[in-house]
């Protein structure tokens, strides 16, 4: 068995909207993800998958339960330490790409390395390598508004990979793309998974996309209702 990257035990997340009204979004989620897995988390909107993603991505802390990311207990960390975890351990890919505007592709890719304190020369070299991997090296000096959606998403993926994170956390990465470009992005994830051995957590509401992955975790009303475990018959 390979190393455990994500180890969640009985995660509960509550929001307090005024004193008497508390809203429990996650009702005790337990989930383990191992190194090199390609997992999809599926659920309808309102099922709690976004909240779960925020916790996995160290953007938020659970109200109760324990979450170990690479053996580090996230629930006890302060803001600065969470920032460091996001920088080093997590690579985010968003539905709306979220590139920084007025900043060219290569600088966008460099950004996580800048916050990690990587020297300028070194991060430029790495950024160019990553753009090569996602097939965007000829667009390095383009600004986001000069790129198509698919191109933006590929740059976002390159950026997510910058600090060699433990997991690539993709939130509806094809949601804003047409089916053909969406296909290309999914192919890129499969390529990264196979060739680079990247651990990928894909959050989606689409069962078809989930079908492509090795393992499907289904969430409903804040609880895991199904987990296929690692399958060999994943479509690729």
């Amino acid at each position, binding site marked *: 068995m390979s190393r455990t990257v994500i180890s969640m035990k009985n995660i509960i997340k509550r929001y307090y909207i005024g004193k008497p009204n508390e809203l429990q979004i996650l009702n005790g989620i337990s989930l383990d993800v191992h190194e090199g897995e390609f997992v999809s988390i599926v659920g309808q909107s309102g099922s709690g998958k976004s909240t779960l993603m925020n916790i996995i991505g160290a953007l938020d802390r659970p109200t109760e339960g324990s979450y170990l990311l690479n053996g580090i207990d996230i629930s006890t960390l302060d803001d600065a330490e969470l*920032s460091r975890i*996001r920088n080093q351990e997590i690579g985010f890919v968003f539905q709306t790409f979220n590139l*920084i505007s*007025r900043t060219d592709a290569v600088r966008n890719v460099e950004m996580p390395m*800048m916050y990690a*304190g990587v020297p300028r020369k070194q991060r430029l070299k790495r950024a160019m390598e990553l753009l090569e991997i996602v097939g965007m090296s000829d667009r390095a000096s383009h600004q986001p508004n000069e790129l198509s959606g698919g191109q933006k998403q590929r740059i976002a993926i390159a*950026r997510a990979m910058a600090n060699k994170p433990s997991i690539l956390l993709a939130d509806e990465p094809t949601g804003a793309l047409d089916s053909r470009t969406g296909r290309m992005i999914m192919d890129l994830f499969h390529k990264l998974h196979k060739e680079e051995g990247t651990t990928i957590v894909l959050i989606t509401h689409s069962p078809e996309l989930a079908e492509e992955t090795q393992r499907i975790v289904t969430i409903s009303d804040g609880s895991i209702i199904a987990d296929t475990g690692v399958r060999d018959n994943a479509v690729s």
Partner: protein
Amino acid sequence: MQFLENIRLAFTSVLANKMRALLTMLGIIIGISAVITITTIGSSIQKTLTNTFNSLGSANYFDVYSQINYEYVEDVYSFTYKEEDMLSREMLNELVETYPDYFSLDLTDGFGSSELRNWKDQSVKVAVTGIIGNVNNSGLKLLAGRDINYQDNINHKHTIVVSDLFVSQYFPPDTNPLGQTITLELEKTGQTEDFVIVGVFELPSLYSKYAYEPGMKDIDKVTFVYVPLDTMNNLLHQENSYYGYADIYYNTDYDIDMLQNILQEFFTEQYEKAEKPYMTVYIENMQKQMGMINSVISVITIAISVIAAISLIVGGVGVMNIMLVSITERTKEIGIRKALGAQNSSIRMQFVIEAILICLIGGIIGIIIGLLNGLSIGLIAKTAITNIYPEYADLFTITIQPSVPAIIISVAFSVMTGVFFGYYPANKAAKMNPIDALRYD
């Protein structure tokens, strides 16, 4: 590393909203330019006064006036004093002999004019002035030879310092005047005396301009010649002489207040010894008065600058306002940066640097405008003086002198305004919740 990156980012963001950034800077620009304009005018006035003052001759002397000792004399209105009660040559001589290192005398007395015949037998007139001290104390520049000195006076030497114009009037061209003897007829007694030329001074152009009528021939121009005062007194059998006031030059290596105290004590003692306790001296010093004028101008400049600086606070609030708008607009960007691992401190630094940059650019533009203002006001003043009082135009060399400390303080103040008014919005950005920021549209 990240600091440089932040500066680059700040530039990008300022350039992306040029018009807005410029309007934001306006408050800072107006504040700083007002301060720089005022300080430039203030320091230019000081510099102009000092220059004008210095061009009139050395200022390193005390004016010592003999006057009634009001502490001693009860009925000051009916009290009168005689000529012999004033400053005597004996006293003054004793002063420079007691303190040769501190003081030197500068006394002059006119002895009428004297007519000479030059090599072509033309008439050349000179005004004879007896002097103790230096001709260059009166703002004259020696071209050749030496000055009349104290030894010339003590030893009653027949030495003379003449003007360059006199040399060309009296001697054939290319004559070395030094060592030549000229004969003067003393106006009072009619006796003739020989004097040896020891030095030549340059007739100041200002003097030539105002002393002679336009179109006057060089040969008709009367110039001063300087001879030792005591030699003249001796020739005319004037034993002692008395002065209502005397210029006493001092050595600038020593503290001026100390020297003034010594003078005051010396003369008080002298009058006591002479059993004239009803007399004393009053001492004035131009350098000190200049200092007072300068400090008054400085105080006024600073006071007006402080009022002008108040507009900087208004400018700073403008910067704060626009930074708050900016972080609201860029909430999403802040969220993305946080998701990518930016620390709160990085975000804070990014926005503080942006605010500093806006203020600094505003400050620099303000300084340039302020300097241009000061320059044009100086030029206007110059033109005005030249046109309205052309006769004083040469006297007042208007010097435009920007105040360097004011420029340095302005730059520092701009940066501080940026930090002060940028910190609150930057901190607000830094403390944003990344989830909410990411969700912001």
